[in-house]
């Protein structure tokens, strides 16, 4: 059964060295959880962006939590490049495993379906493929002249995290049309979810809300975190704090600026008290 805990409790459940899956910038990013992970000083994460990373990845990398990063891209969107990511990859401090969006989705679907691999069109002739020694090119195994095709091994994250507008007391979580979260969680061994609020009403009781609900059976633990996606948006609930993100993009250009940002927005006692 799903456990109800604090955000710090959830962060404590992410072991050093875990393969951690995080949602893309437009989809329920658990920023309060990211701040808690940085405070807990998690180390050697293998971070998987599903399929692209943004502020969460940049902060975890900047804070020294990440060993390898797999993503189709990492950026701060309109706020520009992700500065800590860019520096860490350029210096080799973090090993980047470049991917492409549908490859991440398909590899997670393979784990979701309990199959060892999924085929994907495209890719052939790309240096993305050339540098992925875990991807295999085979000649059409159906023997129908379909040409070569790439097989992507399943990716099974140790932990998947996201932030939702709401869960119910039974542990069911609203995801709406952000169904990459469903596949991400199905594929993962454990799922840790922060939410704006926990409601009494069973999300599965009504067909209308059931359609956008991740059932509790996949959810390991839940914690309440008000404005838990801040400074990113939570679709339908609050907008991104674009000014804050731009300020981050400026400050994080240097290690010192980034450290100052963490001091103010992650480690400050007021922040911790609020989380």
């Amino acid at each position, binding site marked *: 059964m799903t456990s109800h805990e604090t955000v710090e409790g959830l962060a404590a459940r992410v072991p050093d060295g875990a393969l951690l899956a995080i949602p*893309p*910038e*437009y*989809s329920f990013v658990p920023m309060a959880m990211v701040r808690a992970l940085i405070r807990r000083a998690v180390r050697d994460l293998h971070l998987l962006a*599903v*399929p*692209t*990373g*943004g502020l969460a990845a940049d902060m975890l990398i900047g804070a020294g939590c990440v060993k390898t990063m797999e993503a*189709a*891209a*990492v*950026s*701060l*969107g*309109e*706020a520009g*490049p*992700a500065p800590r*990511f860019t520096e860490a*990859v*350029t210096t*080799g401090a973090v*090993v980047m495993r*470049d*991917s*492409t*969006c*549908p*490859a991440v*989705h398909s590899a997670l*679907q393979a784990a979701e379906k309990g199959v060892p691999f999924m085929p*994907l*069109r*495209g*890719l*052939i*002739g*790309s*240096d*993305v*493929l050339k*540098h992925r020694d875990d991807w295999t090119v085979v000649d059409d195994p159906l023997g129908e002249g*379909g*040409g*070569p*095709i790439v097989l992507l091994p399943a990716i099974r994250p140790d932990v998947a995290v996201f932030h939702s507008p709401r869960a119910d007391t039974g542990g069911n979580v609203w995801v709406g*049309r*952000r*169904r*990459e*979260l469903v*596949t991400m969680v199905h594929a993962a061994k454990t799922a840790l979810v922060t939410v704006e609020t926990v409601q009494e009403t069973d999300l599965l009781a009504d067909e209308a809300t059931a359609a956008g609900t991740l059932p509790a059976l996949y959810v390991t633990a839940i914690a309440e975190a008000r404005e838990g996606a801040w400074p*990113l*948006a939570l*679709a339908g609930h609050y*907008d*991104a704090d*674009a000014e804050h*993100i731009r300020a981050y993009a400026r400050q994080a250009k240097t290690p010192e600026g980034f450290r100052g940002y963490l001091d103010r927005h992650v480690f400050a006692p007021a922040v911790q008290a609020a989380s």
Partner: protein
Amino acid sequence: MTRSADEFLICVIARMLDGAGHVAVGAASPIPGAAALLMRELTHGRLLVSMIHGRANNPFTDGGREVFDCAGQGRIDVFFLGGAQIDGEANINLVGTGDYPAVDTRFPGSFGSAYMYFVVPKVILFRHEHTRRVFVPKVDFISAPGVSPPGVYRPGGPKALVTGLAVFSFDEGRARFRLESVHPGHTVEEVLDNTGFDVDVREDVPTTPDAEPDRLALLRSTIGAEVADVYPDFAARVLGAAAAGAASPGAG
């Protein structure tokens, strides 16, 4: 009516969407996005425009994979890609310069290009900056190749390249660009001087037609507000539209 360079490019790209049924637009593509929305308005909605990361104009309900599945099903006619580097065979580099993985400069990454470039019938390459820094003899990293050998499944690929200076077509059989028109105020020589690879040049290269005044007016009214939903900063800067504040910085 005076127009900005961005407004001009929006109108250039809009013309290329004539006759398309479904255009998908990814993150960080405000100019193609505005062009698609403009063309939808002009076709009274016959053109379906899917803004992958907008909240409005985003028809997808099956998660982040749906746009790629949809393209794989053959339901997307036009897609846009760019490149930190683009070479004469239409290879694009969205990853970095230098000797990968030890890159000198790192860009965000390949996004969906290594797939979409293969399966969408008409990929329009767009890059505002037209310099030898961008248009290189050979990209340092192939995020997605411009052409594929026989036998490789490839119903899609590059059909055109639009830059701040010119419009090119792409011949997949010969793996070469051809200069089709030069933007007002620029010359063929200027274009070739700033292109780091060899291209074909059509005879009597015409000037790219300027922005149509009625389309400009539409852009600044109806379309601006729609663009702001996905690209608020861009809309405010270029189209003078009030940022809806509704968008998160999208990626991927």
